[in-house]
Every structure is written in C-alpha cells, then in structure tokens.
C-alpha cells in the first residue's frame, strides 16, 4: 500500500472524501476488492490469521470510522503492526514484524506471584477464557514523540491482581518479558540489561485504564505487538507497556525497570506523559500522530488526566518523571 503518498492529501482533503479514495485504491486490487467491500460494509472479517505484513488486514479500510473518546481515528492495522519498538527482536521498527513472524506464543504461561495470597501460573488461553475480553481504544504515546490510536483487546490488570490477592506488604507490581535469545535475536545484544522488566505502583496497576492486552483490531495480538500478553498503560510513555509478559510479581519496593537502568537521568520509573517535563533528546511538548504531517500538542497524562491525575496528588512530577 502506498501509504507515503496518502499523508499530505489527508491534510487537505476532507476526511470522508479521502477515506473513500483509500477504499477506492483498495478496491482497485491493492488489498482485494472483496476485503475492501466487507470492511466498508462493517462486516467483521472472520478469516482470522492474516499474514502480519502488508496484506489485507481487519479494519484497514476503517481508519476514521472508529475513534478514541477525543474523536481521533484509530491508526491502520498496517501501521500498528509494522512500526514497532521491540528491541528484543531489533531496533529497526520496520524489521520487527518479519523477525517476529514465527514467534511461538502457544503454549504460554504467565507466573503471577510474589506478595500475593494466591500465587498461580496461568496458561494464557485460560486468561482469555476466564476474563471477559473488551475493546479499548487508547492513544499510545512513545517517548520518541510519535503516537498512535490503537483498538486493543484485553482485560483490566486489576481483575487478575484481585484474583491473586496482593498482601498488605505489596506496594508495586513488577513485570518481566520472555528471555529467549533463540527466538528473539535482539537479546544477543549485550548492551542491554535483559530481560526487559517494567513496574507500576499498585494503585496504578489497579486503575481501570491499565489493561492486559491480548489482541488488537478484534483479533489475537500479532507477535510484533507483544503477543500473547502485553501491558497497556495509556497515560505513560510506550516503553512502560511491556510486551510478551511471562512474569507478574507483587513486590514491596519500587522495582528496577530496563530503561531507567540504562539511562536513569532520562527514563524515570513513573514515565507519565507530560508535555511540561522535557526529555533530554525529544521534545515532549508536541508529538506526531502517525499518519499526520503536522505535530500536535501532547496532552498531560496523554489526555487521561481525569482518570489518573489523582494518583499523583502532591507529587512533584518533574522530580518523579
């Protein structure tokens, strides 16, 4: 799909006209007329497994139909699944999809333990059955100052944590990514303190916005987006949303996180999206929404201040960045 050329026109062409042009291009055979018609009619595609890169994808023609609560359209499946920061595979965002194609996500177990009453190792399929899967359309703001709107599927982390039953000593949640260099070539790079680990304060983890995502666009999560299970914390920079989780641990002290280990002066534990707290490299005041030409202002807590600002009452956000 010739996505480069469509960007400038989208800025000057009324959206519905531009959308029908996209559908027209698709119908001309780029994605297959049938798929485009199905998508245009809003019929969910039942086909399931699509090859990850570059082919017809669920909802691809539907940009603009689904929006977040601020009215911004979701990004295309193509963009979401071919522009990935996933250093366990490669630092090349376009290269992740092909390297992750054969990533084995089944069987997959997640260990939930630490300071909990009911430690348990779950099979990810059981999690999918046990907790109702819901769609959440969230903005994802990368610390590199680009952003997307993504229709995730998943369930609140709080549901799982409630079942585990954190003890009174549990103050933080620590997450860990799979560490399998045979499948994830980037792990051979010794310049990173693998495995990837992340953490949240318990109240952040229990917030209803915090999602354990299992899919996007109504389908199972593609490997390059963190299959089979990833965290999504929409008011924090993207690197907090750890992928391919194998371990969730309740702990008493603030856990180390990978990026704050690498460069503590640049990546804090909280990493809340905040246009007023600059990062040494990237302006955090503005961002580029993928698919748009002009920068747009970055919102405090990525636009979720109403739901999460109270978590940080009385904290100096420029110190606790």
């Amino acid at each position: 799909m010739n996505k480069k050329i469509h960007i400038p026109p989208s800025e000057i062409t009324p959206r519905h006209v531009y959308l029908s042009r996209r559908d027209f291009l698709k119908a001309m055979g780029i994605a297959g007329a049938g798929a485009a018609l199905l998508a245009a009619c809003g019929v969910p595609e039942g086909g399931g497994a699509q090859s990850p890169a570059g082919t017809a994808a669920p909802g691809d023609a539907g940009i603009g139909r689904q929006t977040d609560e601020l009215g911004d359209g979701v990004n295309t499946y193509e963009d979401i699944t071919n522009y990935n920061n996933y250093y366990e595979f490669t630092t090349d965002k376009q290269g992740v999809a092909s390297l992750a194609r054969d990533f084995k996500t089944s069987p997959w177990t997640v260990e939930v333990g630490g300071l909990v009453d009911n430690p348990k190792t779950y099979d990810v399929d059981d999690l999918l059955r046990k907790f109702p899967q819901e769609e959440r359309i969230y903005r994802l703001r990368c610390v590199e100052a680009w952003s997307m709107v993504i229709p995730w599927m998943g369930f609140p982390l709080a549901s799982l944590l409630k079942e585990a039953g954190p003890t009174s000593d549990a103050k933080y949640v620590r997450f860990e990514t799979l560490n399998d260099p045979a499948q994830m070539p980037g792990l051979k790079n010794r310049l990173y303190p693998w495995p990837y680990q992340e953490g949240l304060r318990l109240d952040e983890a229990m917030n209803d916005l915090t999602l354990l995502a299992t899919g996007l666009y109504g389908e199972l999560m593609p490997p390059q987006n963190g299959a089979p299970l990833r965290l999504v914390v929409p008011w924090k920079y993207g690197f907090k949303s750890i992928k391919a989780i194998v371990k969730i641990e309740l702990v008493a002290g603030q856990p180390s996180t990978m990026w704050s280990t690498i460069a503590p002066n640049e990546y804090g534990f909280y990493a809340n999206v905040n246009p007023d707290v600059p990062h040494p490299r990237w302006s955090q005041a503005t961002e580029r929404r993928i698919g748009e030409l002009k920068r747009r202002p970055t919102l405090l807590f990525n636009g979720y201040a109403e739901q999460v600002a109270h978590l940080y009452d009385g904290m100096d956000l420029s110190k606790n960045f």
Partner: protein
Amino acid sequence: MRFRYTPLQIAVHLGAWFPLALLAFDFFTGSLSANPIQDLERRTGSAALTLLVLMLACTPLNALFGWQEALKRRRALGLYAFMYASIHLLVFAGLDYGLSWALILDAVVEKRFVLIGTAAFLLFIPLAVTSFRFWMVRMGKNWKRLHRLVYVIAPLAVVHFAWARKGDIFRLQGDIMRPLVYGLIVLLLLGLRLPPLRRAAVSFRTRVLLLVPGRDPTP
C-alpha cells in the same frame, strides 16, 4: 578520447547519490515506515556522517598507503556530506517542525543533541562555501586553518548521533553500537593526523610491507 573519470571518482559520485536515490525509491514505492519523516531524518543524517567519515579517511589513506588520488576526492565527499546535512536540517525544521520557529528554538535550546547538531552544521557552512579553488587561492594559509574545523565538526556529529539514540554511550548501554563504531573510526582517523601516531603507523606499515617479498615498501 580517453574516459575522463577514474574508478574512484565514479564510485564517490555514485555512492554519494545512492542513499538519496534509495530514499526516493522507498518513498515512491511506499517502503518507508509509518513515520516517514523520522526515516528521512535518520537516513539523511546517517549519510551525512558516513560521507564525513570517508572524507576524513582520505588524508590518512594517502599518508599511510600513498593513495594520492584519495586527496582529490576530499572536496566532493565533503560537499556531499554537506548536502545530506542540509537536507537533514531542512527535514527537521521544515517537515518535522513545520517551520514553527518557537518550537524549533525550544528544541535547539532544550535538547542537547539538537544543539550539538546545529553547532556542527553552522561550523560546516563556511567550509562548504570556501571549498572552491577561488577561495583556496584567495585565503592562502588561512584556508587550511579554517578547514581544520572539520576536526571539531566530525566529533560533534558523532555525539549528536549518539545522543539521538536511546541509550547512554558513556555507560555503554542501549542502542549505541553504531554511534560507537563511528566514534571509534573518527577517533582513529583524527589520531592518525597526530605526528607521533602517524610516524608510528607509517613505520608499522613499512615493516609489514617488508615482510611481503618483492614489495617496495616506499609508496
């Protein structure tokens, strides 16, 4: 009529246009990433730095291996490096920041990597402008003095690159492999310009060549 261009000359010109041609190709075939402006920034920056390093390699190549033709290619390499640096800057200011001067000024002042990159580019301008014979003749000794600025520009460009990646080059952690490699090469190329190091390198080369039967060690 004899063909006027040497193989090295052809390689320099074709090689220098290649990154731009590839960018144009990827643009028109839709092979850039979902964030094409970032692609443009990264790839033009990479090309500029690579050409700058190649330009710095010319003098040591002549000193060590007697490859005099390399000296003749310095200007073209330098000007191509400047071309890519200019496109890099135009993409940054024009496309990335939409010529919003307030935002650009903020970025330059606040972000150390933008500041350093800007400094490197500003220092590069007088070199590009005076790279022609007219100025060489007119400036005399000062021409050489001025053009030694490249010994400052290249390290600045490497630091700019290193700080634009996620990681910490001084702690050797993160996405710093490429900046590190560029940095070591620049360090080596600058080091070989120091008389003691150059003499050591030349004598080492002479001894190595003496081991090869039938080779004349003098260039």
